[in-house]
C-alpha cells in the first residue's frame, strides 16, 4: 500500500507556528499558511521582516511600562508636553490606548502589568509597585488616578494602592475612575464615551 501524502515538513512547521497564535484554529492556520506561500514574494517576506524588526526594537518602557522602541524611546515618557503632575495607573500596557483615545487625559501613565489576585498567586510584589513609588518620590506628581478594572480584582488592586500611597505620600491626591465603567470589565471593554465620563467624574479615595 502506498502511504497517503500530507504537506511537506516545512509547511507543517509553518502551520504549527500559526496555530499557536491567539484565536487561530487549525483550519485558519492552514489557510493562512497556504496564502502566505502561494503569494510568494511580498506578503510573507514583509511579514517576516516586520516580525523581526518588532522583536528587535520593541521593549516595555522601564518607567511607565508601555511599549517603547529601543532607538526612539518611549512616546509617552519622552513627550515634554504631557502634564508631569498627573499619573494614571492602569493594569496592562494596552489599557493606555482606550484612555488616550478619549483625548481627555494629558498626564503620564504607569502600567502595573497585572492586578492583585491571591488565588492566582499574584501579590503586590509581582506588580510594578516599587517603580511607582520611586516615580512618586521624585516629587512632581500631585495626583494619582487609579484606572484599574471595575471587577473584583481591579477594585481590590485600587484599594490596595490607595492604602499604600496614602501611607507613604500624605499630601498626594488619589482618585479612582468614576463608576459607570461596565461592572466586571477591564478598560478595553468600555466604549470611549463611557471612559470619558469616568475620567471627568473621578472620585477621591480615602486611605484606609
Amino acid at each position, binding site marked *: 500500500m502506498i502511504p497517503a501524502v500530507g504537506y511537506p515538513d516545512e509547511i507543517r512547521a509553518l502551520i504549527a507556528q500559526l496555530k499557536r497564535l491567539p484565536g487561530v484554529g487549525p483550519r485558519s492556520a492552514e489557510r493562512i499558511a497556504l496564502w502566505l506561500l502561494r503569494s510568494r514574494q511580498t506578503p510573507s517576506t514583509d511579514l517576516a521582516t516586520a516580525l523581526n524588526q518588532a522583536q528587535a526594537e520593541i521593549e516595555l518602557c522601564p518607567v511607565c511600562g508601555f511599549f517603547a522602541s529601543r532607538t526612539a524611546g518611549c512616546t509617552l515618557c519622552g513627550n515634554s508636553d504631557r502634564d508631569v503632575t498627573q499619573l494614571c495607573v492602569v493594569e496592562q500596557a494596552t489599557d493606555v490606548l482606550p484612555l488616550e483615545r478619549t483625548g481627555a487625559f494629558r498626564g503620564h501613565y504607569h502600567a502595573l502589568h497585572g492586578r492583585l489576585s*491571591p488565588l492566582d498567586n499574584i*501579590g503586590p510584589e509581582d506588580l510594578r509597585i516599587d517603580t511607582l513609588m520611586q516615580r512618586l518620590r521624585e516629587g512632581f506628581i500631585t495626583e494619582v488616578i487609579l484606572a484599574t478594572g471595575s471587577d473584583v480584582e481591579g477594585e*481590590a488592586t485600587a484599594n490596595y494602592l490607595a492604602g499604600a500611597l496614602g501611607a507613604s505620600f500624605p499630601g498626594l491626591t488619589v482618585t479612582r475612575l468614576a463608576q459607570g465603567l461596565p461592572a466586571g470589565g477591564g478598560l478595553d471593554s468600555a466604549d470611549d464615551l463611557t471612559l470619558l465620563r469616568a475620567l471627568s467624574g473621578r472620585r477621591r479615595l480615602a486611605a484606609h
Partner: protein
Amino acid sequence: MPITSLRLRDFRCFESLSCPLAPGETLFTGDNAQGKTSILEAVCVLLRLQSPRTLAGRELVRFGAPGFGIAGSVNGRELTHTHTLAGTERRLLIDGEASTRPGDYLAASGLVVWMGNNDLELVSGSGEPRRRFLDFLGSQLFPEYRPALRAYEKALKQRNFLLKRDASPAWAEIDAYTAVLVPYGETLLRLRAALLEKLAPHATAAHTAIRMADGGAPASEALSLTFHPGGDSSQLSAQLLARRADEARRRVTLHGPHRDDFLIALDAMPAASFASEGQQRTIALALKLAQATLLREARGQAPVLLLDDIFGELDPGRRNALLAALPADSQKLITTTHLHWLEAHERPAARYHVVKGSVTPE
C-alpha cells in the same frame, strides 16, 4: 404564553432535540437517567441562564462536543443561548440579534420555578440549599442580585484564601478585598431580608392551602420563616473589623451573607428537627409555591413551573393537594418515572417519552 418550542444541540445527553411545548401541561415520561431532567434544565438555562443542578457551564455540554446550544420561542420571541467551551463562552440572541447585556435578555425572557425531589433539603438540610433557594428567586426579581452575588463570592474566595495563606495575616492585602466585599455583601443582606419578608406570608398561605386540601385542620401547624442574617446590612465593615483577632485565629471570614440562613418553624418549633418527613415535604412544596406567587406578583405573568419527578414520591393525599394548589395559569413541564398517579389525572395536552437522549411523542 411563555415557551412554545424547545430546540437543543449537544446539551447533556442530547445530540439534538426539537419539541413543541403545550401552553398548559407537557409531560415527559421515561425511566431514570434517560434525559428527562435535562430537558427541564435546558428550559431553565434558556430562560434564566442558570442551572438548578450545576454552577459549571461545561457540565452542560454533551461529552466530546465543542459546546451546547439551546433555542426556543419565548413570549413570542426567539431566544438562543449558545455556550462554547473554547474561547468566548456565551452568546445570547434575541430574534437573531446578539444581546450583549444579560439583563436585557433576562428581561425579555420568562420566569421559572423549579420543583425537584431534593427540595426536601430546603427543610432538612444545611443553610446552603436555603441560600441557593433565595439566590434562585432573588436573581429573577432584582437585576442587581446576581452581579452582586458573583462579585461577593469572588471577593470572599480571595479574602478567605489570604486569611489561610500566611502565618500572620497580611491585613493590607486582606482589607483591599474587604473593601470590595462589603458593599456587595450589604447589598445581598438587604435583598435577602426583603425577599424573606415578601416570601414568608405567601409560604404560610400556601402551606395552609396544601394542608387543608390534604384534609388537615386549618387552625394547627402554622408555618413561619425567620431570616437569620450572617451580617448587618449597614454595619458589615465594622462587624468584620471587630472580629479581626477571631478571623486571624479561625482563618475564615466570619460575617457576611455566606452565613445567612432562615429558620423554618411549625407552630414555633424548628421543622428540621421536629417535623415528620411528610410534614417537611409539605413545607418544601409550600416554599416553592410561594416562590411562584411572588414571581407572578413581580412580573404580572405566571412563571413556568418545572416539576422534576415529584409526583411519584408523594402520597396520594399530598399529590392531589399539590395538583390543586398549582397555579392554574402557569405553564407546566413535568417529568415522571412513575405512571400510576397519572390515571387519576387529566391527560396533558402534550406527552413525550424519553429514551436515551431521544424524545418521541406519545
